[in-house]
């Protein structure tokens, strides 16, 4: 047991002090800070100049109404009542004085508008102006027809539509829409974090082992402590490293949100409202995350011990990445159809359980025995993989060949056999 801790602490500290770890952590913190301040950064580059649009109003009543609307909506353009001719205005546009000219004329039906501009790519001014003019037109037309503005208002009011969960016989209600939305958010977060963790830290484990193999230091290591304890010391050492990194990110993100609580970013997280989820969902998230990591990490450690050169690690990453991508796809599908039989079945397949079963727990009310069964299968597979992994590890570290094949896997198992 003592040697387990030595390997664990060596794995942790040597990685923790490594340049790549420090750089990725700093990069991520920088990313969090950047993302948190994105609105400020965009503002920094934004053009503060208010563009002017010339208005030639031949109706003499529209300009004041339009300007009132524009001022009230706080837009990035202003109107100017232009007194010259249309030709003069057009020249002013070409000279850069205005972005465009709005020409308003009386008509049989109220009025018509023409917009002259040399910037056809930017459609936003036209869209906004059209919108305003439409409103003015409605007001004017209803006024003329003598309809009460209150009636108009009630016509435009959105219909009231509310979903209410029916109370179940046992007194509880089905998940409310907000709850499900929030759980979906958590499932997305979990998907991302598990995917990131498996690929990033799994790769670290495989690299570490392949490194020790290619430098042949492995032979000394396994002559001084048991391979199985070494393998798990590595897996757990890297897991602690990963948790440290994730913790650093969370702390960085927390301070980021704290410092901007009053701003939009803070509000966004309040709306997201992770606090609405029950504690058990959080517990499940942590449990499934850790078990999922352990399962994939054991797989990586096993395969890492089969290659003899660091270059070959990439080759064996692919099947595992395909597995986690499959889990990802199933969850994406399952998020909208959590009750489908396909999702139910896949939630018991250990490689998919961490994501798919978690999704079902979050979105549905499933009996506790189902959860217990899936966790049992998951834990069982980890143990089986761990036992096979340790044997492959023991045999594999003595094999030095090119590439990886199923044959190598068999040979590694054979090498570690007690008696054959």
């Amino acid at each position, binding site marked *: 047991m003592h040697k387990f801790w030595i390997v664990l602490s060596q794995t942790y500290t040597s990685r923790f002090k490594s340049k790549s770890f420090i750089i990725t952590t700093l990069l991520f913190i920088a990313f969090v800070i950047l993302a948190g301040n994105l609105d400020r950064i965009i503002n920094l580059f934004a053009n503060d100049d208010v563009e002017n649009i010339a208005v030639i109003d031949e109706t003499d009543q529209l300009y004041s109404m339009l300007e009132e609307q524009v001022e009230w909506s706080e837009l990035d353009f202003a109107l100017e009542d232009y007194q010259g001719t249309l030709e003069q205005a057009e020249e002013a546009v070409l000279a850069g004085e205005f972005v465009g000219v709005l020409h308003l004329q009386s008509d049989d039906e109220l009025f018509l508008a023409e917009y002259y501009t040399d910037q056809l790519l930017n459609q936003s001014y036209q869209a906004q102006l059209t919108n305003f003019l439409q409103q003015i037109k409605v007001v004017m037309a209803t006024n003329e027809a003598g309809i009460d503005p209150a009636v108009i208002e009630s016509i435009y009011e959105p219909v009231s539509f509310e979903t209410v969960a029916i109370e179940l016989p046992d007194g509880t209600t089905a998940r409310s829409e907000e709850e499900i939305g929030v759980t979906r958010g958590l499932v997305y977060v979990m998907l991302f974090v598990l995917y990131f963790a498996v690929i990033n830290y799994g790769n670290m484990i495989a690299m570490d082992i392949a490194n020790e193999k290619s*430098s042949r230091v*492995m032979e*000394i290591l396994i002559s*001084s402590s048991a391979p199985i304890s070494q393998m798990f010391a590595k897996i757990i050492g890297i897991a602690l490293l990963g948790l440290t990194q994730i913790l650093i990110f969370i702390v960085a993100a927390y301070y980021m949100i704290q410092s901007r609580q009053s701003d939009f970013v803070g509000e966004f997280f309040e709306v997201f409202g992770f606090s609405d989820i029950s504690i058990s969902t959080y517990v499940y998230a942590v449990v499934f995350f850790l078990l999922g990591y352990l399962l994939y990490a054991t797989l990586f450690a096993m395969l890492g011990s089969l290659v003899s050169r660091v270059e070959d690690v990439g080759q064996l990453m692919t099947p595992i990445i395909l597995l986690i991508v499959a889990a990802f796809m199933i969850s994406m599908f399952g998020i909208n159809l959590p009750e489908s039989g396909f999702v139910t079945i896949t939630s018991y397949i250990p490689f998919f359980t961490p994501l798919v079963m978690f999704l079902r727990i979050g979105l549905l009310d499933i009996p506790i025995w189902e959860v217990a069964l899936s966790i049992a299968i998951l834990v069982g597979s980890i143990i089986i993989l761990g036992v096979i992994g340790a044997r492959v590890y023991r045999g594999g570290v003595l094999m030095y060949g090119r590439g990886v094949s199923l044959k190598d896997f068999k040979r590694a198992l054979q090498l570690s056999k007690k008696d054959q």
Partner: protein
Amino acid sequence: MTLQINRVTKRFGKFTAVDDLSIEIPEKQIFGFLGANGAGKTTTFRMILGLLDPTEGKITWEGKPINYDRTDEIGYLPEERGLYPKLKVKDQIVYLGRLRGMEKKEILVELNKWLERFNITDYLEKKVEELSKGNQQKIQFISAVIHKPRLLILDEPFSGLDPVNVELLKNAVIALKEEGTSIVFSSHQMSTVEELCEYLCIMQHGKPIVHGSLKEIKRSFGKKNLFIHADFDLTFLKDLPGVVSQKLFPEGCKLQIEDESVSQSILEAVHKKGFVRKFALEEPSLNDIFIEKVGESYA
């Protein structure tokens, strides 16, 4: 007590790496394993260390099998360099030493002693990949002996080293033996084995061809070498009874003779011919025995 290899066989599928090997390796001595590449030396060492399990037979040290409870008493220098290339010498030895049950403080004291002994004190803070091959081997050696093992296994410790470094490591091995360490090592440099080992075993295709103490092996080999330097032509000696072979040199020849008594009749024969500058009867070299036993193909 000794290290006992009792009727050990190791098969990898259909290939037999070690075939019914039985050897007793005495305590506090240096035991040499000789053999061509692929003779089964490394496999035998891996079985002694418990890295591989024998297909048949048993290996015991002081009456008990070697397992992970006893690895702190064993030192191992693998055939290939086995060090972390990116790690500093100090961190490297501290880690490997701790895995052999030592405390950090102790390790640093011992490490400094060894670095001084090998005249490489400047390398304490250097990365292993920056060192020359010879110096890497010294570090490798230190990692195998830092915890003062009682049983030391050295797989080809001197291969690829210059004569100065070979001498340095040899002296270190002899010093360890005098301190009471039991040492097993393999080599295909006959002269080194001859110089260091009291006991040895020559392996071929996984089988021990010859084993026992060096003196006994030489004595039971029977054949002796006779070196004669003379002014006249010595080719006629080849046809005398009891002469196995003759190798001519510019200043004389080397005869391999069946046993000591043959030398007397040869002495008489050359004495009559004229002036003899050198007439020396010598024990066969290990090289002679090896070549004879393993076959000309290896030489």
